[in-house]
């Protein structure tokens, strides 16, 4: 299979279409671990967890922080449908940092209440991913 091929990547959120580009390689955070897609991948569908999507176009990598969603891979087309997707350069570091601090605070307090704990945990991992992705833009 030719590695020269292109993959048509489409990332959409309920609010807008984030990315619509031809890329050469994609890495995404699948529910069961990170996976990579190269041209000619077998049809594949997976849910995604909070994490980082990386794609390469003309050799240079770009990063996005994504929330819950799912991805469908068919031939040379990849659809990624997620709740939110933020490009690395769009992330507000200060806000992400503040969100992390808040989440950590909540985790400390929550302790007993399981629902609150799970929620705070999710908020924390979202904040961490955003920080990590944002740091890539530098």
């Amino acid at each position, binding site marked *: 299979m030719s590695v020269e091929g292109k993959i048509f990547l489409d990332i959409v959120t309920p609010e807008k279409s984030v990315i619509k580009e031809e890329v050469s390689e994609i890495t995404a955070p699948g529910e069961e671990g990170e996976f990579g897609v190269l041209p000619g991948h077998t049809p594949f569908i997976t849910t995604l967890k909070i994490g980082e999507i990386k794609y390469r176009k003309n050799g240079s990598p770009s990063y996005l922080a994504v929330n819950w969603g799912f991805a469908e891979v068919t031939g040379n087309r990849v659809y990624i*449908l997620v709740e939110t997707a933020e490009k690395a350069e769009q992330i507000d570091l200060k806000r992400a940092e503040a969100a992390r601090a808040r989440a950590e605070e909540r985790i400390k307090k929550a302790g007993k209440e399981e629902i609150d704990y799970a929620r705070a945990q999710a908020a924390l991992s979202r904040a961490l991913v955003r920080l990590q992705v944002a740091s890539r833009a530098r």
Partner: protein
Amino acid sequence: MATLRDIRRRIGSVKNTQTITRAMQMVAAAKLRRAQENALKARPYAEKMGEVLSSLALRTQGDAHPLLERREAKRARIIVISAERGLSKAEGIVKENKKRSIETSLVAVGIKGRDYFKRRKYDRYKEYIDVLGDLKYSLASDIGRDMVESYGDKAVDEIGLVYTKFRSTMRQEVVAETLLPIKPMETEPGESVIDYIYEPDEERILKEILPRYVEVQIFKALLESVASEYAARMMAMEAATKNAGELIESLTLSYNKARQATITKEMLDIVGGSEALK
């Protein structure tokens, strides 16, 4: 014949009306802009989701998930997001279903639909009133969850969605779509269907995605309907403002004519008077 004062009064009142319709037009235009933006931005997600789901439906067996199961339609349900024109379309479907002896229950979103179907004594399953002004995703998930449950429990065998699709400010179109069961994608003859690899597994994927799909489609329909509603309202108010303008023009014309007539009459009186004195 109307006196000068009558005409002046009418002009004043029409002008007042025009001020109001113009203000309403402005409000609708501002709201439309936001609603249109929301509707357009939500489209790609809903459409992609529909594509993924129909290709998923093609590749899985009907028994993989309750929402993919196709049953002979005996009981149908239609979600009607009301704008006046949508109502008659929904009514048409209900009547059509009746001929094929399919029981149909309705979910009315918006006050117009509720009143309309109440008056006609249709079977209303649920009503959502006062929700379109300040539209929230939670409304779509409420309706969605309810529908998924009904379908899963086999309370209904088919769920339709009637809403107004926003094409442009000038054009809105009533559409009826089938929400459930999900239609498998149509394939070209001879095209082979390759099965997916599922991660984590088929059952869990379907369980996560399908209910979400229903919500997203409902939400899209809600957004489209709201945008259409504002567009229609704006057009109506624009027409009203224009009509008022025309009315003012013709009233002003007759006002001037009447005024001139009085002046002429007065002059004739004066001339007649002075002639008589000679």
